[in-house]
């Protein structure tokens, strides 16, 4: 649908900030309107990219877990195998991709903790790759306009 959601959300944020906020008289209501406008700006930034971010991240985490499967305990190997047996999500709704993402990142936390305690070059390299993915995850989710 056009105009697309980011344009509409941006226009709504502008209307709140420019037209409504100056008319609001009490400090708490001013804060509420200002934060609402900021939230719309943040939502607009995520709207177009959200599915792509989650799909890319889910693939990246799957690759890390596959690398880890030779290093970790039998229990964790089984959990990785169970996830591997399932094809990447064909349902591209944000809610479905988020569920898959949460499942993968929950297992990544456990694998990361295990890898930190392992000796050897392979474990160290995997640990560094996991940190690289965590850096990438914040870059994917980065939004402009956050206070601070």
């Amino acid at each position, binding site marked *: 649908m056009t105009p697309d959601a980011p344009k509409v959300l941006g226009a709504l944020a502008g209307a709140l900030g420019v037209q409504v906020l100056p008319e609001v008289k*009490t400090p*708490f209501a001013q*804060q509420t309107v200002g934060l609402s406008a900021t939230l719309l700006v943040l939502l607009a930034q995520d709207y177009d990219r959200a599915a792509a971010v989650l799909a890319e991240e889910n693939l990246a985490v799957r690759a890390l877990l596959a690398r880890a499967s030779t290093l970790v305990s039998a229990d964790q190997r089984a959990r990785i195998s169970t996830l591997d047996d399932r094809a990447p999500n064909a349902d591209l709704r944000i809610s479905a991709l988020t569920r898959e993402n949460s499942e993968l*990142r929950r297992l990544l936390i456990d694998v*990361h903790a295990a890898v930190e305690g392992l000796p050897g070059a392979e474990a160290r390299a995997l640990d560094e790759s996991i940190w690289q993915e965590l*850096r990438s995850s*914040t870059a994917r989710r980065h939004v402009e306009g956050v*206070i601070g």
Partner: protein
Amino acid sequence: MEAAIARYLEPRIPGAAGLNVSNLFRIPGGASRETWMFDASWSAGGETVTANFILRKDPPASLVESDREVEYTFYDAFAESAVPVPRMRWLEQDESHLNGAFFIMERILGCDSSPRRIQEPDYAEARPMLARQLYEIAAAIHTFDWRQSGIARLIDAPAPETCWSREVAYWEDMIDRNELTPQPIARAAIRWLKRNPPPPAQRVSVVHGDYRVGNFLYTKEGIKGIVDWEMAHLGDPLEDLAWSFMELWRVGTPLMGGIVQRDEAIRTWEAASGLKADREALHWWDVFSGVKAQGIWVTGAKAFDSGKTQEPILAYTSWGLINRQDEILLHSMGRDA
């Protein structure tokens, strides 16, 4: 609500009659309670008396989970001390008066409080003095003899060597209970904190818990009140120092809280407190601050998601702050590049 407040106050002010409440407004501020300002006037002994108050009331849901009696007690303990605080008047645990427990304190008039306001050009001359006062007052909080106050009756004191572990356990549990999605960076930070514990606290001090620009009242003449004590507890004073330095409070400047160089703040605090800010220990508390902040943001996000509240500030914690906090955590752990 005006009438309910008037009904509550009149019998509690000796000799007051015809008490009237006016100018009741909700104001921004405080992570865990609704904050309202109001004026009251009444007749007493043939005279008309007026007073200005702040009311802090438990909301349906909030960023942090805190006990109102604890907050009241910390405020009250610092009355007439070197730490400026508003005078506390009434603590009410009975929820029937205002549909929620609350406390009322006197309002300090004519002050600014915003982290942005202090950045404006007309505050340029006063900023260095306000920064110095901020860390002198922190020293006064951290050297306060809490054992002689109501705090000792209400709060369990940790041992110096368990200050860190108690705080890590508290905030890890907060993330366990409230995260809506897994937090791999915060979890890695928690593991790092446990593997690299700081030295025992030099002294078990009052820790304000949210000590930063934005949580004090100021004019160009100085700091008039330290507020928002809802996360106060006993612990390692370095916790407050590191929290006040967190990147999120720097409002886009390289300065701590947007007002002072880190080393200068440390020097002021050390000179005023007689305590030392060991740089490695302070770094541990820097990383801890990121975990604690993430605990607060995920709690706010869950409160919004659960439908307990629809205040935009709680949705903002999810959309604006959780990823930003992850960026800060990576930086403080030296993992950002």
